[in-house]
C-alpha cells in the first residue's frame, strides 16, 4: 500500500474546499422549465400556433392525455439525465420508468396511425417544422451540457444523449399544438427530427470531451 501513500498525500495537500452538489432534482426542473419557456416563446415568435389547439386540449380527452403523457415523459427524462451526472444518483428502476413513459408517449402516435386522437387535418401547417424542431433544440442541449459539465457523469456521452433527447422532444411536443395534427406528419417531421438530435448531442459531447478531457470530470 506504500505506493498509494504519495498519491494520497498529493491529493490531500492544499485541499481546496468545494461547494456541495446542488439539489439535482431542482437543477433538472429548473433546466426543464427554462427550456420549455424558451421553446414556447421562440415557436410563438416564428409563427402562430394552430387556431383551436388550446381549446382541443379541453374538449378532446385523448389529445389531452397524449400531450400530458409527453410532458410527463420529457420531465422524467430531464430528471434522469441530470441524475446520471452524479455517481449512484440514478437507479435502474428510475431509468426504466423513464424509458417506459417515453415509449408509451411515442406509442400514442403509432396507435394514432390507425386511430388518431384528433381528426387529421392540415390546419396550422408550418412550412419548416422539422427544421424548427432541430434548431430550437440546439440551445437547450448546450444549456444542459453547460449545467452538467461540472458534475461527474460516469458515462458522459450517455448523459448527453439523455439531455439531447429531452431537448429534441420539447419542441417536437410543442409542435403538436403549433403545427398540423396528423400522426404520420408528427412522426416524420416532429418526432424523428427530435430523435435525430440525440446523435447531435452525443457528437457534441464527444467533441467537447476531445477538446477538454476533463469535461464532466470536474
Amino acid at each position: 500500500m506504500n505506493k498509494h501513500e504519495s498519491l494520497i498525500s498529493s491529493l490531500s495537500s492544499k485541499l481546496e474546499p468545494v461547494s456541495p452538489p446542488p439539489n439535482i432534482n431542482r437543477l433538472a426542473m429548473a433546466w426543464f422549465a427554462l427550456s420549455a419557456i424558451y421553446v414556447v416563446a421562440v415557436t410563438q415568435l416564428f409563427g402562430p400556433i394552430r387556431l383551436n389547439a388550446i381549446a382541443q386540449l379541453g374538449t378532446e380527452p385523448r389529445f389531452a392525455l397524449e400531450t400530458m403523457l409527453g410532458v410527463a415523459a420529457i420531465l422524467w427524462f430531464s430528471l434522469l439525465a441530470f441524475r446520471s451526472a452524479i455517481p449512484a444518483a440514478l437507479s435502474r428502476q428510475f431509468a426504466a420508468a423513464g424509458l417506459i413513459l417515453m415509449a408509451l408517449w411515442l406509442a400514442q402516435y403509432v396507435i394514432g396511425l390507425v386511430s388518431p386522437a384528433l381528426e387529421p387535418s392540415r390546419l396550422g401547417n408550418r412550412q419548416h417544422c422539422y427544421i424548427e424542431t432541430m434548431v430550437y433544440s440546439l440551445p437547450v442541449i448546450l444549456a444542459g451540457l453547460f449545467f452538467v459539465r461540472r458534475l461527474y457523469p460516469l458515462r458522459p456521452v450517455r448523459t448527453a444523449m439523455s439531455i439531447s433527447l429531452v431537448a429534441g422532444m420539447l419542441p417536437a411536443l410543442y409542435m403538436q399544438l403549433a403545427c398540423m395534427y396528423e400522426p404520420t406528419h408528427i412522426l416524420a417531421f416532429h418526432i424523428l427530427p427530435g430523435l435525430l438530435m440525440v446523435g447531435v448531442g452525443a457528437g457534441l459531447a464527444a467533441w467537447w470531451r476531445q477538446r477538454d478531457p476533463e469535461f464532466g470530470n470536474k
Partner: protein
Amino acid sequence: MLQNFVKMSAVAPFNTAVEDRLEWDWPKAKTMTGMTSLLGSFSIAVNSRVSTTIPDEAVLTKTVEKHITLTHESDEQRWSKLMANAQTGNESDYRQLLTELTDVIYNFLCSRFGKYHFTEDCVQETLIAIHQARHTYDQHRPFRPWLFAIVRHKAIDTLRKQSSRQKVTRQYKGEQEVLSQGSQQNEADNEIIRGHLLESLSEQHREVLVLTKIIGFSVVEAAEKLGISESLVKVRVHRAIRKLKKMMEADHYEQA
C-alpha cells in the same frame, strides 16, 4: 491468512481494514476449511476476549453477519462525515478517508479480479476519480453506493484502457515463477488470487482478457499464444469486458 484474520479480529474488531478483509476472507474461508475448522480457529479470538464457550455454527455466523452490518453502518457514517469535512477543505480528514478507502477498494478489486498489477493501477485511478468527484457527494445520501459506482466504473475503464506493457509482462513472468513455486499452496488460495469475477467468465474470455489486459501482452502476442486470429482475440476481449461490466453492475457489494 486465516490465522491473521483471526488474530486481527481479536485485536481490532472495529478496524475498517480488518473488516474489509473479513468481508473478503469470510466466504472463501468457509469454502476453504469448512465452518468447523474456522470455528476452531475463531475460538482463539473468542477465548481471548469473552469466554471459553465455543458458540455453535449458526450463532457464530449470525454474530459475524451482525458484526459486519454494524461495521458497515459505522463505516458509512464515518466516511460520510469525513467526506463532508473534506468538502470544506479539511486535509487530515481527507487523508484519513482516502487511506481507509484504499484498503477497501484494494480488497474489493482483489476479490473480483485477483491480485495483479492491474489492481494497483485501478486503485490509483479510483482514488483520483474520487478526488475529482468529491464535490458530487451529497452527505444526505449513503456513501457506499456513491463510492462503488465510481469503483466499478473505474475498474472497467482501467481494464479497457490497459495496453501492452512489457514492464508488466516481465513482472508477470516473475510472479509466475513465484506462483509455480507455490504449487503446494492449496486450491482455495489460488481461487483468492484470481478473483471471482474473472473466475465466472468462460475459459475463452478469461484467458484472452488476462493475457491482453491484465498481464499486458499485445493482441498479436496473445493470438500467437492462444493459436487464434488477432480479430478473434479482439472480439473475445470486447465481449469479455462487456460481460464483466454487466457482472459489476449486478454486484451489489455496497448494499451487503
